[in-house]
């Protein structure tokens, strides 16, 4: 266990180092941050002085080493536009994004597993055909289209649900949550559905195919020959085996969902990290961009490690203490 975590830590450090190199390298190619920061009236000489002061004229390695040293001290830089430490900004916005992803993950979990299992158990029923058709349709519709359609139907035509923002939130131990107010929950519904719509068809299909495989296995046949009830065979023997690959894929996809909330957050004006990132790009707010890219890398590393640990707990044949073969 400790060996496993140790190896993972070393791997993570290498990955984070490479990401930081790449993220920092793009800084120079994004445009001139000064054009956005200062007005027309500032003269060229003053701009040059400002550049020197900000360290923008230093060679790449100097800038990079300064950045790494600061980052190791917990300082990822200061936003040019918001004039606040980047870390604080991201952590502040992260709460909104995590709630959005959490809601979407719940939807995926509680929709994809029942639908996938149902369509595997009844492969020939009409409902299965409808589910499979809708899921292939769902894969091909882009998220911004889903989001705009949902907004048009439920916010504009029916006027049931709000179309932008987080609504009322309350502060619970420093965490701004929208899950505990009625208004906050209403604001969560549409963005969560939109975000879930990207992954949902994929997961329905994954659960279905894994379940079909489990149902065709010898141990399911043996379980039937033992005289067990269909419920036990389906929901214990087959489902538990189905969940192993679903967890692996799911873990990776959660990372992806946190990282790519950009489209959903933009359409719904959701004040999360994705929205922040888009703003930062428009303003050439390079410290925010760099920090965000590194931060996303970190999320991937952490979720993948977590998934591997979880997998080892569920599957007794996997021993993460380091036994080979």
């Amino acid at each position, binding site marked *: 266990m400790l060996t496993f975590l140790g190896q993972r830590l070393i791997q993570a450090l290498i990955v984070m180092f490479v990401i930081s190199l790449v993220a920092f390298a793009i800084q120079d190619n994004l445009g001139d941050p000064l054009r956005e920061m200062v007005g027309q009236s500032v003269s060229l000489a003053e701009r040059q002085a400002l550049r020197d002061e900000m360290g923008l004229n230093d060679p790449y390695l100097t800038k990079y080493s300064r950045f790494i040293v600061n980052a190791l001290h917990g300082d990822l830089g200061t936003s040019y536009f918001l004039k606040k430490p980047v870390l604080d900004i991201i952590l502040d916005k992260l709460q909104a994004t995590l709630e959005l992803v959490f809601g979407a993950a719940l939807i995926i979990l509680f929709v994809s597993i029942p639908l996938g299992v149902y369509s595997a158990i009844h492969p020939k029923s009409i409902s299965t055909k409808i589910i499979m058709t809708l899921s292939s349709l769902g894969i091909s519709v882009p998220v911004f289209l889903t989001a705009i359609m949902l907004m048009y139907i439920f916010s504009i035509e029916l006027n049931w649900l709000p179309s932008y923002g987080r609504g009322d939130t309350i502060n619970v131990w420093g965490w701004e949550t929208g899950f505990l107010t009625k208004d906050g929950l209403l604001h969560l519904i549409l963005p969560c559905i939109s975000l879930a719509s990207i992954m949902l068809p994929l997961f329905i299909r994954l659960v279905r195919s894994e379940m079909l495989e489990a149902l065709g296995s*010898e141990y399911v046949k043996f379980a*039937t020959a*033992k*005289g067990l009830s269909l419920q036990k065979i389906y929901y214990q*023997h087959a489902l538990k085996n189905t969940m192993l690959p679903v967890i692996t894929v799911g873990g990776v996809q959660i990372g992806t969902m946190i990282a790519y909330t950009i489209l959903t957050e933009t359409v719904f004006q959701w004040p999360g990290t994705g929205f922040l990132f888009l703003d930062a790009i428009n303003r050439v707010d390079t410290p925010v961009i760099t920090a965000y890219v590194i931060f996303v890398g970190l999320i991937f590393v952490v979720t993948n490690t977590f998934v591997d640990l979880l997998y080892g707990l569920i599957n*007794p044949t996997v021993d993460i203490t380091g036994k*080979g073969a």
Partner: protein
Amino acid sequence: MSLLEIKNLCIEYPSRHGVHHAITSLTLNIERGEIVGVVGESGAGKSTIGNAVIDLLSPPGIISSGEIYLNGEKISGLNNKEMRKIRGSKIGFIFQDPMTSLNPLFTIEKQLTETILANLDVTKEEAYTRSISLLEQVGISEPKLRIKQYPHQFSGGMRQRVVIAIALSAEPELIIADEPTTALDVSIQDQILTLIRNLCIDKNVGCMLVTHDMGVVSNITDKIAVMYKGELVEFGNTKEVLDNPAHDYTRSLISAVPRSDVKQHRFPLVSYIEDAEPLPELDIKTHWLGQSETQREYNGALLNVDNISLRFLTKDSFFASRREYVQASNQVSFHIKEGETFGLVGESGSGKSTIARIIAGLYTPDEGNITFEGINLSALKSESERRPFRRQMQMIFQNPYTSMNPRMKIFNIIAEPIRFHKLAASEAQVRQIVHDLLDHVGLGRLAGLKYPHEFSGGQRQRVSIARALATRPRLLICDEPTSALDVSVQAQILNLLKDLQEELNLTMLFISHDLPVIRQMCDRVGVMQKGTLLEVAETEQLFNQPAHPYSQHLISLMPVFKGLKINQK
């Protein structure tokens, strides 16, 4: 009243291409306390009978006519809910592969108690006590500890014991065992069969034993049912049927069984089964196959294996002292003379295949040397130096289903080594050689246009042999070449190997866990256990007077197939 009565059973598999009749008009009875062996080729419908009895036919199979009675009550055509009351509690089922019939994610306790709770009216505590006593009955030591473990912590034989414990857990009246020992070693096979036999006698339980192993049938069954292409061609007392087989197929099947008592030159009478066409004659002396380019004068043994050791890491650790290894081969030494067949025998995990792979150059040994015709292969540095020796040693693998690229045509599968080693002058010659090879292994040149999946297991193994011959090898390494095949097909493949060996003066390393097969094929035999070579002896001497206690033990467990009058003709 019989325990199980099957009357005029017909099973059909309807498909787009018409209806396949898996079983036609089968009538069979099983009494209490009796073991009925069901034998036949794969695809003859042996397993289908058992599956039909507990209504577990794989779709789209259906019972088109006929009835099945258990204790006089009709059980065919019951609905799912009624059938569930029969499964487990009245009929216990044992599957072939203990590696896949247990759910890997649940403990043995869970899988045992859930069966008991589903079939008997007991409390959880009673189910647990019962599970413990069942595990004791099937010979699992420390049941209280082991019941908490997962299937992967059990060996194959132990898992099959667990499967048997589960099948017996609700005291069924009938046990259907579908090839219960095929996946197991000979010593474990013996234990499992004795266990089933004793259970049938002690508890007065009837048993349908589906198997392709005639040795097993002759040893433990009371009656025998011979299936051929979905029909029951013979049914009767085991001894009578084996002594006086009435049907041609039965006779052919019996003659295909490798005899454990006497070495025969060839297997007689196997032609009944697969319509193998007569081989077109090839003049080996003038043919490409007979001309070897690197034939040089050498008088010593063709292959010398000298003190080979290899260990595999089983538990990695940062600290060298805490790493764990398994010794796959331990100071193994033997030699093979030109034109000889050398057998390696031992249980699974004894390191037989490891030796084969080391010789073929697929593994590098930790220590020791492999010498081929006086040249030390371990000393060769580059791949280009090794290549001529790779050409002269070819392997035939155990599983003909996975050892060929499914996306390549047979022609290209066989032509690939010829092209790679640049053994033919022109593409036209390559074509000629491949066609001759296909003819020679009895497949016919048209087979080259097909893909591997279009062939049966026996035919594919013929392709493997043709592919191995395509480099004009001098040493053929056969790693369990027939253990995935039916006995009759096995007899044909072994005949083919023997013929080829005589024609081409091939040297063979023949690896098998099947002692009768070894006896038929080999001149000298080495016995392996846990990576160590215990004994090397002439075949006849080993079978008549084994020197090492382990060899004696192995040979005493060999299922002896008795009463074969026709073989003496």
